[in-house]
């Protein structure tokens, strides 16, 4: 059945617990006895809005070795945390370790659908589906913000200037909240607001090598020195 409730946090304990678990994962990961510690750690990650891929993969691995000890509740939390780590492929990495049978359960099917929408940048469908499944997602604080950060990341890869409506749909914020959000981004993240077509507003996203490809160095036709040495005798 797994853990029922996350344990009450004791003062000063969380950081040292995290350290202890990370040590276990680094030094003694193939050990069935650490399973309860890893489960506790998942709950701690949820409560304190931290994340550890290595520890979670270690736990999924132990579940793989001993399927009877698996807690689907914990697995669901790991998957939600992994979704929040996007654009990193952590969600897929976790799925590789979860048997097909388990993936057939309703809550996992839902999470897989949500992942699919995010992977294919279908943000509107994502937020619609997420709204229908609050009970799965609410358990993990910080979920919304994490997905919004991912949405901004993808927008920043793609756009130099994006219409406000596109942004709004991607991060699922409108009206006054959107104003506040934009203010914050302008003040802290180098965003600029411009006038767009008609009554619209354009958001100018920060420069990077991804939305400004000229900034990227091209090394396509570099020839390494060792290759040139082949013809030194000929060049005489």
């Amino acid at each position, binding site marked *: 059945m797994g853990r029922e409730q996350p344990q009450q946090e004791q003062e000063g304990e969380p950081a040292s617990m995290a350290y202890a678990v990370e040590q276990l994962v680094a030094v003694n990961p193939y050990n069935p006895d650490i399973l309860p510690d890893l489960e506790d750690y998942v709950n701690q990650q949820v409560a304190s809005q931290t994340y550890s891929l290595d520890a979670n993969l270690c736990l999924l691995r132990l579940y793989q070795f001993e399927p009877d000890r698996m807690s689907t509740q914990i697995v669901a939390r790991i998957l939600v945390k992994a979704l929040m780590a996007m654009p990193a492929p952590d969600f897929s*990495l976790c799925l590789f370790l979860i048997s097909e049978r388990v993936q057939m359960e309703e809550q996992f099917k839902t999470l897989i659908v949500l992942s699919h929408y995010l992977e294919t940048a279908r943000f509107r469908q994502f937020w619609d589906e997420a709204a229908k499944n609050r009970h799965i997602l609410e358990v993990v604080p910080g979920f919304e913000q994490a997905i919004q950060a991912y949405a901004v990341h993808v927008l920043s890869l793609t756009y130099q200037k994006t219409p406000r409506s596109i942004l709004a749909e991607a991060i699922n914020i409108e009206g006054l909240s959107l104003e506040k959000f934009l203010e914050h981004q302008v003040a802290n993240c180098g965003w600029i607001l411009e006038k767009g077509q008609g009554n619209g507003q354009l958001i100018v996203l920060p420069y990077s090598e*991804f939305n400004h490809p000229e900034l990227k160095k091209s090394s396509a036709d570099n*020839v390494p020195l060792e290759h040139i040495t082949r013809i030194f005798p000929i060049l005489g």
Partner: protein
Amino acid sequence: MAAPFDYEDGPQHPASAAAYDPNYVPDSVKSFVSHLYRYIRDKNVYEIHQMYETSFQTLSDRHFKDTPWPSVDAVAPYVDNDHVFCLLYREMWFRHLYARLSPTLRQRIDSWDNYCSLFQVVLHGVVNMQLPNQWLWDMVDEFVYQFQSFCQYRAKMKTKTEQEIVLLRQFDQAWNVYGVLNFLQALVEKSTIIQILEQDKEGLEQFTATDGYDYNGGSNVLKVLGYFSMVGLLRVHCLLGDCHTGLKCLLPVDISQPGVYTCVIGSHITTIYHYGFANLMLRRYVEAIREFNKMLLYIYKTKQYHQKSAQYEQILKKNEQMYALLAISLSLCPQLSLVEETVNSQLREKYGEKMLRMQRYDDESDALYDELFSYACPKFITPSAPSYEEPLVNYNQEAYRLQLKLFLHEVKQQQLLSGVRTFLKVYSTISLGKLATYMEVDEPTLRTILMTFKHKTHAVGSDGKVISNADIDFYIDDDMIQVVESKTAKRYGDYFLRQIVKLEGVMTDLDRVKLE
């Protein structure tokens, strides 16, 4: 690489009891073991290697084509009943058995026991030998192979006899996944190989320079077994579907440089094959392509030197599998400029047609991705023991089916990208509206396709940084797409160099011709 990977366990047919006498020791074998024993005592690595590589093969072909070697008890008298030598002999004995015959369950269990004893002796640090790297690699390689083979065998429950089930339940520690992983981990830790490699990099320790051999009177066995165990761990984690952890285990090995892992062709190929595969699964396509390219070029240039070796078949098999993985990687990430011309022409020969069809992203292409992936992927395993209650089913394909399904799901998500590529190659500027019309989708859909393209072509490295795998660079300005001309990157430099050398060769030949 000593035993064939795709060795299927057919119906049990251990050596026919009549023909095989475990106590019969031909003279040539008496000579073989006593010489090998002496060379090991004398730490004569060169001679050990000759006997191990060549003599063992020759004797196997001559006397033991389809029977096991004499039992260890029969040969022990010729080697002073030396405990460690007997463990080594048994290791070779089982490896030969797996390669030429079908091991019984009992034999599998006994082999496991032998590995336990052998590794424990090594871990206790009482071993004082120097053994050839080839042998040490084969030990780790065979250990992981027999584990994989056992999992496959155990998962075929349908044809298990009562007897076998009793044995399986009784000896549940044999080839237990915890045991296997912990031995590999213990070898890595006890050998302190990670610290040794760090010091080696700083020049404070001699390891790579001596190919792992110890010239200070010590033993190379623990160190080198620890080193190869990192590759062993990479392999086991890939078999379990955990490519991320696999790559982590390999991290201390710098694959951008030659090292001890390149000393043995089997180790070199196994390392790069799994490294490339893991990167492919982690969507780091450029990294996978780079490493496959280097490895395939190396094999192309050097395989003639291995024609006589026992590993030749394996080398060829892995070569073909890597071409398939390269074909997949390039279809998902069309960056031909990363591929050397020789490799490219081989690739075109083998998979040119198929790659064209794969990039079309229709139902046919799905089938092709399936075909190539299934051919080239590692033999995934289910590590947990079965429930021995009824009904007894075969579940040996479960792990593979899951990995395949997830991989094809990823491919499907990238389906719409090929259409985008075709158009973006042709235009330097195009409005979203126009492109949407050409692609027969609406504008919002086009926006999601373009964002998907960006997301899928920008992987996240192990350090958390974004790496671009993109073959086409573009950005959107409100509703205009600006495509940045990426250099077609014809490898002029490489091509000219080759032609210069060729011409020089022709001129030298001409000079030699004497006109009458």
